[in-house]
């Protein structure tokens, strides 16, 4: 393929990347001498249907919790009372129940992961856009083990825990007491549970039947008569929110082991938007300085490097959207850093060119510089990729960092390096061949 065709191909790729990089709605605001336009161009999403195949892609940037707002919670499980073989199943059902609770709480696209390090088992819960982190923590982190007890010794207050528990529930929902209007939780037992409940109420007519949540009595209704049908109501001293939380917990099931919150990171949506705006501003100012610097240092060739850098920016943004990469604040820093590093290959080549032009004619010097500089560009970038690999920890080694922001940073940095090899070497080389050598002739 001759350079002219390659340049044409590069232009096509850049246009596609540029199109994908555009935000979904491009705002157009004009307010000039009575002329007022406030509208937006909508970039249509990709929606291809061809026979069996269907490609849908909306090309929106995926923002991490620190930019979109949300909570990152880490719970540590207390497994001290379990045998080794039971631990694994406990962790799995712990994760499942936590995830069920999150879903019932109504958070879209939550992320619930298990992580272990040196015998400590943890569940990481990521809740994008959560408004009330405290409520979420209360719902997710509470064991919520419901037990029914019977009074064995009325004077001393002795009780016996029965085998009727939250595990015998089919469903729980919030109800309001018809007389007092106070919120309560209405429960429905499974067939098995209903049988146990009938037996229990039969045995305890006109006695109180304490209901315990995590070992603490929440209500102790007096049994009027034997209850058949497997329905009951827990009328504790609830607020509506508490009743709602409890019904979520009961529906999802009790946690098999107690957990405690060891880490919370919550970012409000306002701070996230501010971070994005600030980063964009910093990025543009930095980019402008780099562009000017390259022209001042290398003249016409610097201009070509600048073009390649803009291609780099568009390609990178487009790839973030296509892959997609979850963009975090450190991730943006990684991107900005890679912009600073992307011109490195050009600088290497141009410095080499300054030496070679003393010995050869223009096109020759150009080709030799690209060829000679390639070795050091390759070796240096592979070394950078090594550290990016350790930081990104793609194989999920437990002894390395598994935190989202650090990975986000490493991913954007690594992607930046790979793309900069393409733009710094292939793109700028062909642009130079076509634009500058042609003029020379």
């Amino acid at each position, binding site marked *: 393929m001759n350079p002219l065709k390659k340049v044409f191909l590069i232009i096509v790729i850049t246009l596609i990347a540029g199109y994908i990089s555009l935000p979904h709605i491009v705002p157009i605001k004009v307010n000039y001498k009575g002329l007022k336009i406030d509208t937006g161009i909508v970039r249509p999403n990709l929606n291809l249907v061809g026979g069996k195949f269907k490609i849908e892609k909306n090309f929106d940037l995926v923002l991490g919790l620190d930019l979109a707002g949300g909570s990152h919670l880490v719970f540590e499980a207390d497994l001290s009372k379990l045998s080794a073989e039971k631990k694994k199943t406990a962790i799995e059902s712990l994760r499942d129940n936590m995830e069920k609770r999150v879903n019932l709480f109504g958070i879209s696209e939550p992320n619930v992961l298990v992580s272990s390090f040196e015998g400590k088992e943890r569940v990481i819960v990521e809740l994008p856009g959560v408004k009330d982190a*405290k409520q979420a923590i209360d719902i997710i982190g509470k064991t919520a083990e419901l037990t029914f007890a019977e009074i064995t010794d009325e004077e001393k207050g002795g009780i016996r825990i029965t085998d009727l528990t939250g595990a015998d529930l089919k469903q729980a929902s919030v109800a309001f007491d018809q007389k007092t209007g106070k919120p309560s939780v209405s429960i429905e037992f499974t067939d098995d549970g209903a049988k146990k409940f009938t037996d229990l109420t039969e045995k305890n007519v006109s006695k109180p039947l304490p209901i315990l949540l995590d070992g603490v009595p929440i209500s102790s209704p007096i049994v009027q008569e034997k209850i058949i049908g497997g329905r009951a109501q827990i009328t504790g001293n609830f607020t509506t929110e508490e009743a709602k939380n409890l019904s979520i917990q009961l529906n999802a099931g009790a946690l098999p082991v107690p957990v405690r919150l060891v880490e919370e990171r919550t970012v409000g949506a306002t701070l996230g938007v501010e971070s994005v705006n600030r980063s964009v501003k910093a990025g543009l100012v930095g980019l402008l300085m780099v562009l000017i610097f390259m022209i001042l240092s290398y003249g016409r060739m610097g201009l070509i490097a600048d073009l390649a850098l803009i291609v780099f920016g568009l390609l990178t943004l487009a790839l973030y959207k296509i892959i997609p990469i979850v963009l975090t604040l450190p991730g943006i820093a990684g991107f900005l850093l890679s912009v600073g*590093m992307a011109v490195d290959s050009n600088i290497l080549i141009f410095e080499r060119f300054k030496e070679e032009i003393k010995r050869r004619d223009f096109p020759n010097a150009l080709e030799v510089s690209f060829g000679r500089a390639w070795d050091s560009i390759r070796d240096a970038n592979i070394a950078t990729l090594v550290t990016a690999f350790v*930081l990104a920890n793609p194989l999920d080694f437990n002894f390395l960092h598994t935190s989202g922001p650090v990975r986000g940073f490493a991913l954007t940095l690594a992607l930046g390096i790979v793309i900069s090899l393409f733009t710094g070497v292939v793109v700028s080389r062909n642009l130079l061949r076509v634009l500058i050598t042609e003029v020379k002739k």
Partner: protein
Amino acid sequence: MIDWMKYRYLYFSISSIVIIAGLFGLFQWGLNLGVDFKGGTIAEYKFSKSISTESISGNINKDIIDVNSIQETGKNTYLFRLPPLSSDQRQKVKEILLGIDDKAEELRFETVGPSIGPELVKKTIFALLISAGGILFWVAYQFKSIKFGVSAVLAMFHDSLVLIGLFSLLGHFFGAEVDFLFVTALLTILSFSVHDTIVVYDRIRETQKKTGEDLVDITNHALTQTMVRSLNNSMTIVFMLIALVLLGGTTIKWFAVALLIGTVSGTYSSPFVAVPILITWDQLEKKYKK
């Protein structure tokens, strides 16, 4: 041609002064550890008006828990540093703040238990060792000499020491905290450092193939030829980072500063630490063989 290697003891002295100043800070004041390492809570709130930090701090101290510090981070925005809060304590703090200003808004809330810190340190050490090992292997393999690999890695540790030491001073005088992002920066600058070193080494390798000159002459050549590139490339990175430090906001300001220190130190350490070590080693080796 400039005889760079003639001044190699000057370079060692400059590095030593910076590192010793850093070590002095480390022993005198230690590092200013953030909540990621020592556990605790940081919460940032935005108010609709300016508040008196003393009275708020007094209110919280009286009822709930000792406030470590309240720092103004922006217009009517304040960062609270507290010991780890329980769910109830957190609610109470929020109530007190809403009592002062009913438009108070929680911008971010981070609480980290005390168990996380030691793990972070362990994982960082693992990551450092694996990265350093990988780079050592790669450089030694590419340049077919363990000398090249070891001196590159030593320059890398030089940069890490400079960064840790300077952060102890920055922490003491300007309140820079060592947190998760600092760790990320620490690992990232490893690659900056070795990036430049490899470019110089590559030049040495190329010249070695062509001429049978003495290693000192070859490196002097290589340094002269790569100096402008090293400086220019660092300039473009420095531009991006300075923009981030000045405009990027409080959350990543110190992260950008750490990367900035790493960039400068990494640029310096390639010609003025890695290469002089390589030369000194080579000369010592020859002396012993004789």
